[in-house]
C-alpha cells in the first residue's frame, strides 16, 4: 500500500480542543485568539446512577439532576490517571459527539491538547495515545503535564509585578514557577523552569479533595447524621463551610463545646441539609445553640428541616493538607513537601521558585489556604529568600487557560503537535518518546 509522503503540518486542523481531564471534572473548551475562562466548560467526569429515579447520568447530564440522594458515582479517572477507558470514552463521546453535546466537534478536524498528571505509568500514557488516535481519531494531538501549561499564563499579574515591556506575541512560558496543584486525587508540587518541569523534583502528597470529603463524611456521620451514602452532599458541605485555620489551636478552643461562655459562633455554623424537594443545595446559617431544645419542645410542630452544627469539622478537615499526621498518614505536610522538592534542586533556583509559588486546583478555593501556606513556608525557608504565594482568580480553570493561551498562537502551537498520519507511520512507542518531556516544545521544528 503506497504511503503518502510525510508532510505533517498539512494535517493539523485549525480548531483545537483544550482538555484538562481531571478526576472530578473535565475542564474543556476550544482555543480562540483571546482565550478567557468564559470559554471553558466544566463537565463532571463521572457516570452517576441515581438510586431514586434509576437513571444513568453521563458527564454533563448531571447538571439536569435535581436529586443527588444516595447517588452512586463511577469515575474513569483513578488517582489522577485515566484507568477506565470504557467510562471515559462514554463521557468524551457524550461531550463531543452527542446530539446536544456541550463541545460538539468532529475529532477528525480537531486538534487535541490533553493534560496528564505527573509521574504517570507508561502503560497508561500509551493507552491514552492509542485511544486518542485509534478510537477518536483526532487530527493532531499534544499530551503534556497539566502543571506545565500554567507557565503560559500571565504569572506576573498574579504577583502584581510590572508586566514585561513588550508582550510577546507567541506566548512565552514564565521563567520560574513553583506550581502546586491540589485536586481531587492528590496534591502535586512541580517546579517549572521556562515551562519545563524538573521531573526528579516533582513530589506528590496523596491528599486531595476526595480524601477530605471522605474524612468529613466520616466525621459528620459519626457525630450528627449518617451521610455515608451521600458523597455529593458532603462535598457541597465541604465547599460551603470549610476553611484553613490560621491558628489551629486557637480555632479548636473556640469551637470547643465546653468553652466558657459557649462556642464561638464565628466558627460554629449550622448547615441546613437540602431536602431535594424545595432545595437542591443546602445552606449555612448562624449557629443557634438552643435549636435542639426548641425542636424537642415543639415536636412535630417545628420546622421540618435537618440541621447539622459544624464546628471543628470546618477547619480540621483541610488541616490534613498541612498535617497529614492527624489521620496517621506518614507523609510530610504541604509546606514541608515544598522543601523536600526544593532539596533536589540547586540552591540557585530556590530564590526564583520560592518567589513564584502558584496554587491551582479545587482545594485552593478553600478560604485561608494561600495565607496559611505562605506563612508556614516563610517560617521554614531561609530568610534570604523572598516567599510569594498566589492563587489565580479561577484556580480550577487556570491550567486550561494556560493551555488555551498556548494553543491560541497557532503557528508556534502546531509545531508541538503530532498528527494522526505521523502516528500511523511511527507508532505508539515513537509517540511516547516524543511526549516524554511532559511539556510542549515550541522550539521544535516539525
Amino acid at each position: 500500500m503506497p504511503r503518502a509522503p510525510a508532510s505533517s503540518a498539512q494535517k493539523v486542523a485549525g480548531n483545537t480542543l483544550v482538555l484538562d481531564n481531571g478526576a472530578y471534572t473535565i475542564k474543556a473548551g476550544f482555543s480562540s485568539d483571546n482565550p478567557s475562562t468564559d470559554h471553558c466548560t466544566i463537565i463532571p467526569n463521572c457516570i452517576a446512577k441515581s438510586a431514586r429515579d434509576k437513571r444513568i447520568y453521563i458527564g454533563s447530564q448531571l447538571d439536569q439532576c435535581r436529586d443527588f440522594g444516595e447517588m452512586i458515582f463511577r469515575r474513569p479517572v483513578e488517582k489522577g490517571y485515566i484507568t477506565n477507558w470504557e467510562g471515559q470514552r462514554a463521557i468524551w463521546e457524550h461531550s463531543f459527539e452527542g446530539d446536544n453535546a456541550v463541545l460538539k466537534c468532529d475529532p477528525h478536524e480537531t486538534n487535541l491538547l490533553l493534560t496528564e498528571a505527573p509521574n504517570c505509568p507508561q502503560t497508561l500514557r500509551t493507552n491514552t495515545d492509542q485511544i486518542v488516535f485509534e478510537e477518536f481519531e483526532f487530527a493532531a494531538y499534544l499530551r503534556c503535564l497539566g502543571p506545565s501549561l500554567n507557565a503560559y499564563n500571565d504569572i506576573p499579574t498574579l504577583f502584581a509585578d510590572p508586566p514585561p515591556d513588550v508582550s510577546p506575541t507567541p506566548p512565552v512560558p514564565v521563567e520560574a514557577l513553583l506550581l502546586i496543584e491540589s485536586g481531587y486525587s492528590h496534591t502535586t508540587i512541580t517546579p517549572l523552569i521556562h515551562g519545563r518541569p524538573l521531573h526528579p523534583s516533582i513530589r506528590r502528597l496523596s491528599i486531595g479533595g476526595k480524601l477530605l470529603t471522605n474524612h468529613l463524611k466520616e466525621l459528620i456521620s459519626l457525630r450528627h447524621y449518617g451521610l455515608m451514602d451521600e458523597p455529593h452532599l458532603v462535598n457541597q458541605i465541604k465547599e460551603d463551610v470549610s476553611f484553613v485555620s490560621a491558628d489551629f489551636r486557637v480555632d479548636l478552643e473556640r469551637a470547643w463545646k465546653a468553652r466558657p461562655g459557649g462556642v464561638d459562633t464565628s466558627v460554629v455554623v449550622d448547615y441546613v441539609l437540602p431536602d431535594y424537594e424545595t432545595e437542591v443545595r443546602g445552606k449555612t446559617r448562624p449557629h443557634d445553640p438552643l435549636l435542639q431544645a426548641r425542636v424537642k419542645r415543639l415536636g412535630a410542630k417545628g420546622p421540618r428541616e435537618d440541621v447539622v452544627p459544624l464546628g471543628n469539622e470546618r477547619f480540621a478537615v483541610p488541616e490534613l493538607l498541612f498535617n497529614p499526621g492527624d489521620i496517621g498518614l506518614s507523609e510530610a505536610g504541604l509546606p514541608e513537601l515544598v522543601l523536600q522538592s526544593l532539596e533536589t534542586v540547586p540552591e540557585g533556583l530556590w530564590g526564583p521558585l520560592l518567589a513564584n509559588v502558584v496554587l491551582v486546583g479545587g482545594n485552593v478555593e478553600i478560604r485561608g489556604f494561600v495565607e496559611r501556606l505562605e506563612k508556614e513556608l516563610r517560617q521554614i525557608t531561609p530568610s534570604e529568600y523572598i516567599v510569594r504565594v498566589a492563587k489565580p482568580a479561577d484556580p480550577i480553570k487556570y491550567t486550561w487557560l494556560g493551555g488555551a493561551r498556548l494553543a491560541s498562537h497557532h503557528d508556534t502551537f502546531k509545531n508541538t503537535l503530532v498528527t494522526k498520519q505521523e502516528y500511523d507511520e511511527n507508532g505508539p512507542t515513537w509517540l511516547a518518546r516524543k511526549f516524554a518531556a511532559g511539556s510542549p516544545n515550541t522550539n521544535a521544528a516539525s
Partner: protein
Amino acid sequence: MPLKQLSNLYHHSTTLQTNLMPLIEELPNTGATAAPGWAYVADTGYDPSKVAINPSGTRNRAARNGPAVSGSELSARQQKVIDQRLAELHKDGPKVAIILPESKRAKSKPTPNVKKILLSNKTFQNHVEDEEALLVLNRSQPVPRAPAPGKIPKTPASKAKRASIGGATPSTPLPATPTGSMPPPPLPATIIIPQPFTRSAESPLQTLVPDLPPPAEIEVLLSAPPLAYTAAQAGPPAEKGARRPQRHFCEICGYWGRVKCLKCAARTCGLECSRTHEESRCNKFYA
C-alpha cells in the same frame, strides 16, 4: 593510649555510680504526652558508651532497636487500624457496576489496541505494580525512593555535602518508561556540583542568595526523566516526634484527645465524651 585508658576508667566509675543509685526509669508511656503541644520525653536513644560496657543489657537492646521517641511508637495492630482507615478514606465510593448505555462507537470495529484497552479491568494499583516490576526487571535493582528529607542545613560544609547529593541525582535517573523502549536522554559525563553557599567577606552576618546555576546545569536537570509513581510520593515528615508530636483528637467531638480509653486506646476529650464512647463506640468488651 593513656587517653583511652582514662576514658575507660571514667566509664567504669560512672557505671559504678549508676549501679549504686536507685534506678529511676521512665517507661515508654503514651499517656504522658496526651496533652497537646510540646512534651518532654525520656531520651531512650542509643548510647554507645553504655553499650561498650554492658553489651548484653536487654534494656539497651530494646532502646537500640525500638524507635527512640516514646508516644509516637505504634504497635503493629494500631498501624493496621490506621492503614485500614486510610484505605477507606482513599476509596471512591462503593464499587457498583453501572451498565453503560450502548455506545454508537461500538458498532464500528475497534482496532486491536483499543479493544484491549477497553476490555482491560486493571486498576491503577495494578498498573503501578506492573511499572515497578518492570523497573526491577530492567534495572535489576529496587526502585529508589525520593531522597530522605533532612533539615535545612546551616553550615557550608553540610551545604556542600547536600549539593553533591543534589548533583548526583540526575546521574542515576529512573528510566522514563518501564517498557525500556525509550532510552534516557544523554547525560554529560561530568557531574556539575552547584556552587556552595557563600557569605560575603565584608560582613559575615550578611548572607548572599546563591547565584543562578549555569544554563548547562539547568539543562541537565530539565532533561532528567520522570520518576516512577511511587518514587515521587511525599517522604515522611522530618524529625517526627521531636519537633511535631503526634496530635490526638477526641473521636467524639474533635477536641484534643486528652483521655485514652483503657480498653481500646481510642481518644476522647473528657468525661462526657468518654462516657459516650463507652456506651456506644467502645467495641472491646475485654480489657
